[in-house]
């Protein structure tokens, strides 16, 4: 049984409410942290090795230490609850089931960063979760954890929930800041970074929901103890939202020492592939990260077991590896069509491009069109190379990483499943009625023995 730090108490009856949460040991980290110097809290978070859970995996403590502190300028903490990356629904789970854990983490982080007004930016569609969070905030306030002079320390803090209105791009931190200022979600050119000039030109730290919730166990157990969980630079636990063709879709907390194979097949987690099918492929970290065929998923190209952690999932780089990303784990069984799946993702990115950079705005549209034509049996062989070309020209040539996020899934699909694209071109009628199947993707890969 793995360690659980975030969801351990998530199923205690009534844990959504303050009284039960508190009686289960809630808000202890605030009591502890508010007696510490803010710089010492940052130090604990650094020691914990906690990495950002929103996708990029940037060390949280380091990010906090970058915040500028100009005299007389207020600073802000913003919690990123935009959660819109296909395959990702872990933050929602946490906020719905154990909202006080997030509020608790936010209070500690606000104190460490000196934020007297902290905002939770939540995707607009999660409308009912706004009520859950506001209720938790009110309860925390009534019990003296928020408001003026918290625990007699002289520290004031308010937390506000800001609803977005339907735009994936607002998950990107500078677009989020623009949106919080009441504007279109157009990402800003960096630098300046938000830590220097963020919302209303004030120093701002943006962190993911899960990252901020994880601050609670970091403070409770101490950074060093936290860092002992997991492996290498993948410390602590990670929430994985698993979906697609598995028996038990849902949100699971893992410590990062379990193998991908165990995660998919064990009853504790995904419970195997649905309907007795075989696995064809998997996108392990949200729609933006490279898809892997089954044979590269369970073992790396070197033939080593692949584990559910930052390093192991990216072993092999983009040639034979993928990424931990946001923890959105999407499983495709043998009946699924890679071309069609990739097409829906391309359509998603076209829809979500903010339109500021031409490679992204135009390129996502072209990729969607070409993928649609291949998928519907109207593609040419040269389209496959054209697709490859377009994604290459987007990657690295845009203001924000959405361009890369749109390019990578297409690149990886062609890299690993090119014969499936070719089959669509060669079999324009048949491809409308049946799927390509499994081919060799699930075969054992031959690993050359080297001295």
């Amino acid at each position, binding site marked *: 049984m793995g360690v659980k730090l975030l969801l351990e108490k998530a199923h205690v009856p009534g844990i959504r409410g303050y009284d039960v949460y508190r009686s289960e040991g809630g808000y202890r980290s605030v009591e502890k942290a508010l007696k510490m110097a803010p710089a010492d809290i940052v130090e604990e978070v650094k020691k914990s090795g906690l990495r950002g859970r929103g996708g990029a995996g940037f060390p949280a403590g380091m990010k906090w230490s970058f915040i500028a502190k100009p005299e007389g300028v207020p600073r802000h903490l913003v919690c990123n609850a935009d959660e819109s990356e296909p395959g990702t629904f872990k933050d929602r789970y946490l906020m719905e089931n154990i909202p006080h854990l997030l509020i608790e983490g936010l209070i500690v982080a606000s104190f460490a960063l000196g934020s007297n007004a902290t905002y939770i930016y939540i995707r*607009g569609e999660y409308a009912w979760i706004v009520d859950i969070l506001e209720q938790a905030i009110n309860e925390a306030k009534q019990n003296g954890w928020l408001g003026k002079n918290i625990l007699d320390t002289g520290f004031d803090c308010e937390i506000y929930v800001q609803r977005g*209105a339907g735009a994936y791009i607002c998950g990107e931190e500078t677009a989020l800041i623009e949106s919080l200022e*009441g504007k279109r979600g157009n990402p800003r050119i960096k630098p300046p970074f938000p830590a220097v000039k963020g919302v209303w030109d004030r120093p701002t730290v943006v962190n993911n929901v899960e990252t901020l919730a994880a601050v609670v166990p970091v403070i409770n157990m101490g950074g060093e103890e936290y860092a002992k969980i997991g492996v290498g630079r993948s410390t602590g636990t990670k929430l994985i939202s698993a979906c*697609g063709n598995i028996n038990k879709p849902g949100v699971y907390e893992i410590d990062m020492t379990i193998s991908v194979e165990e995660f998919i097949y064990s009853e504790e987690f995904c419970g195997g592939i649905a309907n007795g099918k075989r696995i064809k492929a998997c996108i392990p970290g949200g*729609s933006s990260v490279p898809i892997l065929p089954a044979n590269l998923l369970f073992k790396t190209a070197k033939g080593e077991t692949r584990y559910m952690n930052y390093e192991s999932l990216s072993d092999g780089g983009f040639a034979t590896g993928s990424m931990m990303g946001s923890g959105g784990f*999407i499983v495709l069984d043998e009946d699924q069509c890679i071309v069609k799946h990739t097409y829906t993702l391309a359509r998603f990115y076209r*829809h*979500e491009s903010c339109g500021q950079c031409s490679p992204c705005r135009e390129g996502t549209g072209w990729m969607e069109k070409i993928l649609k034509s291949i998928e519907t049996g109207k593609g040419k062989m040269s389209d496959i190379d054209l697709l490859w070309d377009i994604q290459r020209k987007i990657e690295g040539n845009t203001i924000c990483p959405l361009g890369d996020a749109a390019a990578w899934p297409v690149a990886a699909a062609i890299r690993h499943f090119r014969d499936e694209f070719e089959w669509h071109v060669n079999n324009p009628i048949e491809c409308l009625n049946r799927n390509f199947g499994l081919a060799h993707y699930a075969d054992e890969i031959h690993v050359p023995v080297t001295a």
Partner: protein
Amino acid sequence: MVKFSDDKLAKVQEIVQRYPEGKQKSALIPVLHLAQENFGGWLSAETMDYVAELLQISSIEVYEVATFYSMYNLQPVGKYLFEVCHTGPCMLRGSDDIVTYIYEKLGIKSGETTADGMFTLKTVECLGACGYAPMMQLGKYYKEHLTKERVDSIIEECKKNAASNN
């Protein structure tokens, strides 16, 4: 005429208070939600101008934002808006069949509204419910694990609610 009730105006004031002095434009997105809920489920030019006036910003600043975000309806929609997700993970679990079934039942495709103005269908991109697919958003809430039977009962429920509200 477009005008918030007093308690809604108080709500607007409460929202504006969340931001620093002079940064009331930050209230725009929440206030547009409030406006859409209050003024018929969509944002007319008149509604947007009213919001601009309330927040003391120019109308163009409101139009810019209203046209950027997908949750704002710039045209009237049916009383019940079915927003069915059809991105990859939902597609893997049969969202296409749900869209087809709604078409068979109600005769509407994505973007269309039934003649009686009751139902609008919209296919949308990932709503963060991929593990509970197929799914749709209906008003404030999600309807998850959709099957044909569940779609039937959702439609019945909407019709019943509409009848009892009249």
